[in-house]
């Protein structure tokens, strides 16, 4: 049972600096998933223990948020198209798709701002809720706000990628930065689907 021989076994992963960034982003997303996980678990615990939790559909506009969800899923598609464009050496396609993706994120944020103002006008705030438990409003704003912050960061991130694309920083061989941004953006979309399900639908 001995592995100690003169033969050099290469380390499992070769030294590829290109892959560091990708792995780093995966690791970050694992940690970030835990913060969303903690918020959603806290939300679940509070809701399960509440006697006057309102039915979300009666307060929140499902049609609007269903459209927002659709928009975000579509933006994941344009993200994939952008990566595919640059992998084929199409720098203009990359910029175009990145801008479309960032714009979708921006529209999402605009709709969220509209939704929030509308709800606040109807009395649902961080500390008040005319329809039942105050914590409905608290958890709603905290979780959607935390997600909205991620979308904001994503829009800035994608805009930077688009700007760098315009300067010709990416090519078919050098598309790693785009792929890493894509990981982040898909994560933000995926989390939204969980938020939409738990906060709006169930």
């Amino acid at each position, binding site marked *: 049972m*001995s592995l*100690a021989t003169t033969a050099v*076994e290469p380390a499992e992963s070769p030294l590829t600096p*290109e892959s*560091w960034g990708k*792995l780093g982003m995966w690791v970050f997303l694992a940690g970030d998933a835990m913060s969303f996980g903690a918020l959603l678990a806290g939300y679940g615990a*509070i809701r399960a223990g509440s006697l006057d939790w309102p039915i979300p559909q009666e307060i929140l506009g499902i049609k609007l948020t269903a459209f927002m969800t659709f928009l975000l899923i579509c933006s994941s598609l344009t993200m994939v198209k952008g990566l595919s464009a640059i992998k084929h050496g199409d720098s203009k396609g990359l910029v175009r798709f990145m801008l479309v993706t960032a714009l979708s994120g921006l529209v999402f944020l605009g709709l969220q701002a509209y939704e929030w103002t509308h709800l606040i006008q109807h009395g649902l705030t961080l500390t008040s809720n005319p329809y039942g438990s105050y914590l409905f409003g608290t958890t709603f704003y905290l979780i959607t706000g935390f997600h909205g912050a991620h979308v904001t960061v994503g829009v800035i991130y994608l805009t930077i990628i688009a700007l760098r694309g315009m300067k010709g920083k990416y090519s078919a061989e050098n598309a790693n930065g785009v792929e890493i941004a894509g990981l982040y953006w898909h994560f933000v979309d995926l989390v939204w689907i969980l938020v939409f399900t738990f906060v709006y639908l169930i």
Partner: protein
Amino acid sequence: MTSATAVKEVHTTHERQGFLKTYIFSLDHKMIAKQFLLLGLFMIWIGGGLALLLRWQLAYPEQPLPLIGASEQYLETGEPQSSMDRFWDSELSKSDDEQGWLTKRMPVGIITPAFYNALFTMHATIMIFFVVMPILIGCFGNFLIPLMIGAGDMAFPSLNMLSFWIAVLAGIIMIAGFLVPGGHAASGWTAYAPLSSDPTWTGVDWGQNLWCISLVVLGISSLMGSINYITTIINMRAPGMTFMRLPLVIWSLFIVAILLLLALPVLTAAIAMLLFDRLAGTTFFNAAGGGDPLLWQHLFWFFGHPEVYILILPAMGVVSEILPVFSRKPIFGYKAMVLALSGIAFLGWIVWGHHMFQSGMNPALGATFMISTMLISVPSAIKTFNWLGTLWGGNITFPAPMLNALAFVSMFVIGGLSGIYMASTVVDIFIHDTYYIVAHIHYVVFGGSIFGLFAAAYYWFPKMFGRMMNQTLSKVHFWFTFIPFNCTFFPMHILGIGGHMRRIYNPMQYEFLQQFEGWNIFISISAFVLGFSQLIFLFNFFWSMFKGKKADDNPWKATTLEWTTATPPPHGNFDVLPTVYHGPCEYSVPGAKKDFTMQTENVDLQAMSGNGGNGA
């Protein structure tokens, strides 16, 4: 990726850099490691000082502190006798608004109950988050990972630098809490709601807010650190450095990085809720508003129990590195050690409820947590017996690193065994929130982590600073730490069994605790000796940095990669990227020319000994 190119730039364009780039905003992992070390060594004096103030109050309740307190005659007659008396006399004659910082916290040198609460809260917070974590993980993680896996630096040097300076920012915010009106956080390091969530209970306003903000900021720093550690260990190992050839300290840091990554965001989320409760008037942890104070406990301990392993696993790794070197034997059961580390890390996630046996949980749930907690003793025992197996029949020598490593093993056994008592729901009902708990956690975190920290500091000091630490002073420091440590913390078991409460301001107000006055005085005197003998370490550390004997490249005759490069290692660590041929502990291989075979030596150990080397 930008950071990847940044690494290349650092290494190729490195000429002599300016002071700022070399010492302050350095991207070199070795300099960042030293910065973390200094941060920890600075904070340890604050954290330790708070503990000594606590011990004064417990031994001599509501008596003026020595040196700065008012004299007995002054307290009796009101006639100032000394300059301190006159100081207190003028302070007390002022109005509340004009009184100084000291007078608000300890008028005439007597610690107030409110300040006492802040003392124990901040002692734990500082020791855990700003001493053990920066030194064991920030310093030794940064220093050892690239050197021991054969890499030039971390994967993301800029992120690494940011991680340090964000930790400093968190430290400044935490210290600032001492200065704000209302005093620092006083709800215990566990910050149980509603004590922490509503300022009316403790009277602490911005102290607790700053505590929260500081830990959120520190969470960002740790997140950056763990991303760096995980990526570096997975992707930057030298050729031949397979996972099963990694030194055990790297294994432990890898697993700790994963725990940090997954645990700290949970704390951050919980603290965000706490801050909303405090600042925005929400009711997450307020039952009157539909919230649940127990939710804080669940979230906190879901972070908090992995955190305990975050504190102890690096020290276990350090000891697994040091015992083979000074026994001249391979580590006993390398694979079992790796599996045990992973097992502890996994089980750490499903035991948090054992901190909450008294919270009124369903007894069936309590029993589940009891069993999962007791399961942890299995991997812990595997590690302990493997350490003993490593020592067995070895050619043992006792320089300072070895003494501290042996102290770790023996103190960890005591702390581990007392942990099993608490894991039992029935026993825990009796000892919950008593000094038994205080004894246990100090045997694990001081007896474990801090002795591990000293062992690591003594062992790697030559590599870090290029000089040996003075051996005589090191040994004096060890014995002046080891003996007072046991005198301080062992009697706390006795107090705990006697019902001495954990966070009590003045035990003498209870008749049944008055019998413990002698023990409390004994403990406090031991604690003062323990605290002041750390000055020996401090002196030795800085004296040796400049005046110590010059160290050669491999002073301990160890086998791992950091000892193959120059002392101290150059920028970029290795002149030529090393190639690895063996596991980390090839000591006393039968037939080999010398009693240690470096990981980089291309020799066929199998052929020499006839039956293979010492394993992987």
